[in-house]
């Protein structure tokens, strides 16, 4: 199974194939312009939110957290993929992740970085953001969350950067056509790399250390994010399985995103010889595994409180799976989790295109699942909702709110596009090593 790369290449060929994406093509400039225009449109809506307050959204006193918070949870979730692929699987010596680990890190860094932006869009007073650093109190889970997410962003950047050093040096030496400034940056960032065996030794050692360090941090970011809900007294949130439940869900959302990005990069930069059908087959299996764990937690979440007759969480659970809005719940659970899981048992479904389409369903399902976790609980408070406008009984996001929710996705795409223009997406030096071992 080790020789998943079927062809044999010379080092020269590997370098040429894998450095190709580092360029500023006309198409990429058009695509980036499109992204920036979309960003401007979303910012236009955000301007109204700044001026007029969160009243431009569909939020109200009984659904005071809506799609912004769902989105935040989703972004943090997706970013966990870096830890799963480059760290856990990498440390376990799983060979097929080698050409994919950098893509996983790119996904992790972009989503973790932008998660911070998402949380700012939800703030009633974004102008007071620094207050958190001045008056932050240690018993508030929000402060824990800010601390761990910030740490994760930095450590993920380091994990992206260290194995990149040899490739940055290569870019500087090989890509003479690039702007001088860009090459200068490569030179600075490659830290005097000279392809010496002891340097490779250091890079490998450091990568290993950071890979280990990132595991508890990654677990912490999503566990703490789950605690924003689990540490309250609300039925539906007040649950002791929320930490591992969220982490399991994060791996599902992250793997789906990772598969989609890998497919896109592979098509766009013609990486078929390095990211083969075998890789998709393996990623499909990974998605089956993480989905299985996630389904297990979903069963626990519903069955345990639902079995008991009287508790408030039992009422919440029954409303969720059998009440007025239960159709939505089942569409998301079946369409975004159970059916994709079952389909992936078939080998043909783990071919690149079918797997990517299935991943898209999982991706959308995972986003909607966050909505189901965040919103319905708030609409069922302990005391009745009375003497308020009709719209306080349900929650419907507004156009402005949806645009502001799309905004972070555009930022992520900008970061991913930018990174794919300036760094090789598949680690070149590791691919060369692979060839030598053959």
């Amino acid at each position, binding site marked *: 199974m080790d020789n998943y790369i079927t062809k044999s290449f010379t080092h020269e060929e590997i370098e040429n194939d894998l450095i190709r994406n580092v360029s500023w093509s006309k198409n990429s400039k058009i695509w980036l312009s499109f992204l920036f225009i979309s960003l401007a449109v979303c910012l236009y809506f955000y301007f109204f939110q700044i001026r007029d307050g969160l009243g431009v959204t569909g939020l109200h006193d009984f659904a*005071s957290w809506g799609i912004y918070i769902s989105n935040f949870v989703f972004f943090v979730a997706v970013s966990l993929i870096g830890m799963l692929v480059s760290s856990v699987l990498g440390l376990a010596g799983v060979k097929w992740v080698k050409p994919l680990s950098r893509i996983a890190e790119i996904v992790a860094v972009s989503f973790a970085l932008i998660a911070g932006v998402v949380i700012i869009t939800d703030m*009633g007073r974004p102008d007071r953001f620094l*207050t958190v650093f001045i008056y932050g109190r240690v018993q508030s889970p929000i402060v824990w969350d800010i601390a761990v997410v910030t740490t994760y962003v930095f450590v993920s950047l380091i994990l992206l950067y260290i194995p990149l050093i040899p490739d940055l040096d290569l870019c500087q030496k090989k890509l003479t056509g690039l702007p001088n400034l860009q090459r200068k940056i490569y030179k600075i960032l490659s830290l005097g790399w000279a392809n010496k065996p002891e340097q490779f030794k250091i890079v490998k050692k450091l990568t290993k250390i950071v890979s280990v360090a990132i595991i508890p941090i990654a677990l912490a970011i999503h566990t703490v994010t789950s605690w924003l809900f689990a*540490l309250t007294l609300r039925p539906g949130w007040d649950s002791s399985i929320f930490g591992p439940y969220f982490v399991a869900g994060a791996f599902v959302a992250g793997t789906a995103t990772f598969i989609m990005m890998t497919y896109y990069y592979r098509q766009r930069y013609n990486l078929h010889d390095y990211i083969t059908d075998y890789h998709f087959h393996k990623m499909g299996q990974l998605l089956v595994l993480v989905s299985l764990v996630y389904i297990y937690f979903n069963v626990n979440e519903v069955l345990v409180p639902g079995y008991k007759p009287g508790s408030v969480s039992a009422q919440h659970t029954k409303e969720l799976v059998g009440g007025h809005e239960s159709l939505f719940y089942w569409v998301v659970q079946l369409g975004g989790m159970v059916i994709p899981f079952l389909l992936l048992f078939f080998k043909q479904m783990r071919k690149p295109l079918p797997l990517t389409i299935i991943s898209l369903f999982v991706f959308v399902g995972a986003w909607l699942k966050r909505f189901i976790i965040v919103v319905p609980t708030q609409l069922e*408070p302990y005391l009745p909702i*009375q*003497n308020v406008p009709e719209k306080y009984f349900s929650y419907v996001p507004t156009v402005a709110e949806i645009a502001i929710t799309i905004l972070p996705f555009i930022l992520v795409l900008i970061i991913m596009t930018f990174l794919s223009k300036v760094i090789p997406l598949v680690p070149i030096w590791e691919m060369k090593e692979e060839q030598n071992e053959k």
Partner: protein
Amino acid sequence: MSKERNNNDSRRDFLKKVGLIGIGTASVTSVFFNPDDLKANNKKDKKVKVLTEDGKSVVVNASDIIDVKEEIEEDYKDLRGREGLAGKKFVMVIDLQKCKNARKCMTACQVAHQLKPEQHHINVLEMQDDVNGASYFMPKPCMHCDEPQCVSVCPVDATFKRQDGIVLIDNERCIGCRFCIAACPYSARTFNWTEPKDAEKYKDVEYDVEKNVPQKLGTVTKCVFSADRLREGKLPSCVSACPNSVYYFGDANEDFVTNGTTKETVRLSKLLKDNSAYTILPELGTKPNVFYLPPNREV
């Protein structure tokens, strides 16, 4: 104190002599004179009698007196607002049998705290008992819990519990994350989703943390037990406004509460015991300071 520094030395020396500056706090200063009266009569020849530090009475020109009140006031107000009244533990008792849904409490509260019609610091709920079918009206303010979840989750100490038991919100600190709204099981909090009511009118009014007015866009607001009125020795707005003797309010340390309508003062412990008082959602362990006397009980 910048205003002070701008004055010439001789005047400063003089003022030091009469001890108007350096006394410390504005509240002490206000014992000597009312600055508003002074402003009205601020003519060159006007003389005022003031008291020096060592207790002598002297006559000075009114124009030589600097009004130091405003400068100190804001910080001091904020500080005393955060500390609360020493030695007190405020409690409210709500007699559900008396509530006829007059809603005078809601109106008085919304006027006092500049709230919109859909914003409730106190909300009269129509309750239906699933077991016995009884229905009754239940006024629901903030419970001012002894284990306030809102205070635990607040990331910036914008909402805090004072020594007198009152849970306040500082809307000059609040970042609008709404974690407190998510954490409060009593749905006691409301948010300024849009520009607050009469924002233009109150634009230049100084913020009073004990009253939580003027309201501010993008911040949370909640029942404050009328902390500003308590400082003046008055009962909360809702309590005073009730026409049906529903509310008792007082200090648990003194063990006395006063009815807002009849002004009758009774022993708190006896009132609670004799009427089998209860708190709402006691199983959550939040330890509310608002007690309810059951509806439909024999009198």
